[in-house]
């Protein structure tokens, strides 16, 4: 496949990346193709290109995060951007400053990108309306986490999965998962079939209307799937009365050796991390050769480089 060595200005016509909803099928493929070009950079001895030299990126994290924040940071640095990390404990938010004020204060320092992780849905959309910098949504509440979906899709594609008709089972707390929501929207756009697995308490209302099917039986789903995506279960959901105990949750929706027997040989197992070992996924499953969790992390850097590059796409850059 011919990779574009030179990406032209205007081929990706977005100021921000706040949702999968906003992307067309063509946009998604452009990001995935661009990421493939960028992945190679991380394998070089000198892991840096000057694509975003002189650009300033602010990582604005209002929720604890290690992998997403680090992944964005590495991605920005490999593109030679200057990146500043702000986390909720370090920022003025604890002093009662509003997001509006924080955003305007930071904008006065002329950043080119703002990457936001926030516990309220729609926060990235809100930020994108009030700042002129490109806003990247690194997870907003229970709504979306578009770069996670993109890196998941990249990983599926890398494992020779064709999206048309691809069978993806997503297992766990769908109702509160931005990872699930972004994947459902994105995979739908590329023609994949999505099956959701979990108890009714963890399914959003009428989720079938998002063009997915729902089952409560993990074994059936595993036997059907080309991709099994496990979600992290937040332990606070138990105190909210959404399931009775960890023991019963893991009995019904945990991926273990026994269930794995039903999984196709060429299927893959994914998890956005961090994993709850022995709850949604058992240690022997993590070690199974079909488990691609670390590939996901690796691809996260390439996909985020691609997104930063495409959003910043003022210059023509020769990647060679």
């Amino acid at each position, binding site marked *: 496949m011919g990779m574009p060595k030179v990406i032209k200005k205007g081929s990706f016509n977005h100021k921000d990346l706040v949702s999968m909803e906003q992307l067309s099928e063509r946009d998604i493929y452009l990001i995935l193709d661009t990421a493939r070009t960028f992945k190679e950079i991380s394998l070089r001895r000198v892991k840096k290109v000057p694509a975003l030299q002189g650009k300033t990126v602010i990582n604005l994290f209002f929720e604890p995060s290690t992998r997403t924040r680090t992944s964005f940071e590495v991605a920005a640095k490999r593109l030679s951007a200057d990146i500043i990390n702000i986390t909720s404990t370090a920022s003025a938010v604890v002093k009662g400053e*509003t997001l509006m004020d924080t955003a305007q204060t930071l904008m006065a320092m002329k950043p080119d990108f703002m990457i936001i992780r926030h516990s309220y849905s*729609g926060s990235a959309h809100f930020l994108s309306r009030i700042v002129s910098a490109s806003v990247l949504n690194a997870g907003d509440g229970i709504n979306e986490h578009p770069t996670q979906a993109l890196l998941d899709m990249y990983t599926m594609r890398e494992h020779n999965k064709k999206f048309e008709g691809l069978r993806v089972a997503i297992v766990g707390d769908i109702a509160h998962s931005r990872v699930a929501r972004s994947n459902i929207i994105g995979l739908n756009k590329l023609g994949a079939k999505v099956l959701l697995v979990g108890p009714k308490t963890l399914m959003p*209302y009428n989720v079938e209307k998002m063009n997915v099917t729902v089952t409560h039986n993990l074994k059936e789903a595993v036997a059907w799937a080309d991709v099994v995506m496990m979600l992290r279960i937040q332990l606070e959901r138990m105190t909210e009365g959404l399931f009775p105990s960890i023991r019963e949750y893991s009995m019904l929706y945990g991926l273990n050796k026994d269930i794995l027997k039903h999984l196709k040989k060429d299927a893959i197992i994914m998890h956005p991390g961090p994993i709850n070992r022995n709850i949604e996924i058992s240690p022997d499953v993590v070690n199974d050769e079909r488990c691609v969790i670390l590939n996901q992390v690796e691809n996260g850097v390439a996909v985020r480089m691609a997104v930063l590059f495409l959003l910043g796409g003022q210059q023509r850059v020769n990647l060679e």
Partner: protein
Amino acid sequence: MLLIKGGRIIDPSHNIDRKADILIDRGKIVEIKSSISVKGAEVIDASNLIVSPGFIDMHTHLREPGEEFKETIESGCRAAANGGFVAIACMPNTKPPNDNPSTTRFIMEKARAANGVKVFPIGAITVEQKGEKLCEYFSMKQEGMVAISEDGKSVMNSGLMRRAMEYAATHNIPVISHCEDHNLSGKGVMNEGVYSTRYGMRPIPPQAEEIMVFRDIALSELTGCQLHLAHISTASSLFHIRRAKRKNLKVTAETAPHYLYLSDDMLYTYDTMYKVNPPLRSRADVMALRKAIKDGTIDCIASDHAPHSPAEKEVEFDIASFGIAGLETSVGLILNLVNEGVISVKRAILLMSVNPARVLGLPSVGIASGNDASITILDLKKEWTIDPLKFQSKGRNTPFAGFRVKGKAVATIVSGRVLYSEL
């Protein structure tokens, strides 16, 4: 003396629909005749306009005492006159709440010092709206309170609600119910449906309202208390209201203009102007409510005027305050429905003037000789654009900014005094 000339008088409470002049003297209507001329009287030319008994907004939040930066009794009264209302009933959820006679008296005194719009305070059902102890309804009524409500929330304890209704019925005080089961609504911020799933927001199921509508109707039947259901937003609630009316229970219901125009699919921008409680429901609910204002299932339309400062709205959706500032948009939006053929102008006057007065038990309203001269003049043909910057209210929080509507209140007359006029 004030002479309103050439208008079409419509007053369903006195079965009037005819062209006539109205002469007002010392705050009272003194004469209604096809042609009156009086030397020296101030004349309002109402030709091609509709002269209606004064519009009453029976569900307003004035924020005073406690949150005067959002609204004061004075600014709220200016907004009311500007929006065509001669009277407003204000909800008790201020800081502190109107849960005792001296707070009621404070509101009445502040209102007397304002522009003249009549203010009817609504008292809390329980002390500090905590749902534990009844307020002194009788003493509050003596100070001018016209109804009780826990607006902003429901009294979750059904046993206590029963006692409140029994005690209120003893003193002929209507109970206005905000219907929301808080265990079901939880941390929700929008209607539960396909769109809450798609937009990834915490949902409030329509059943949170429906269950309390059903409960309070059942308690009204048990206690014989007059019950008015505030801001009804769902089709399923209408089912229970129709049933109550068939059984001739003392039950009336209200909705707000935004539930007749806006639906949950519009929240895709996460614009906090659309955040309101009860939340905007589905398009099917909007259509059901439009039918219900026509067929009489819904008796009243009230603004649920909930002014907020920018600081409460220019934030993330989850932490933004619920509410829409509606005093200056309601009449226009409802007259626009008249122009769209959804309801007749007579029905609009019932919904916004005659019925609210009946529910609250207000004295001598209506266009008749000897009555208090509180009148709203309507121009059904006037087209205008809603512009929050022109509001008299301190609250500019409206999802209707930029909306083109046809129909407007062009003069507001309270007890013979012209408080607002563009004539």
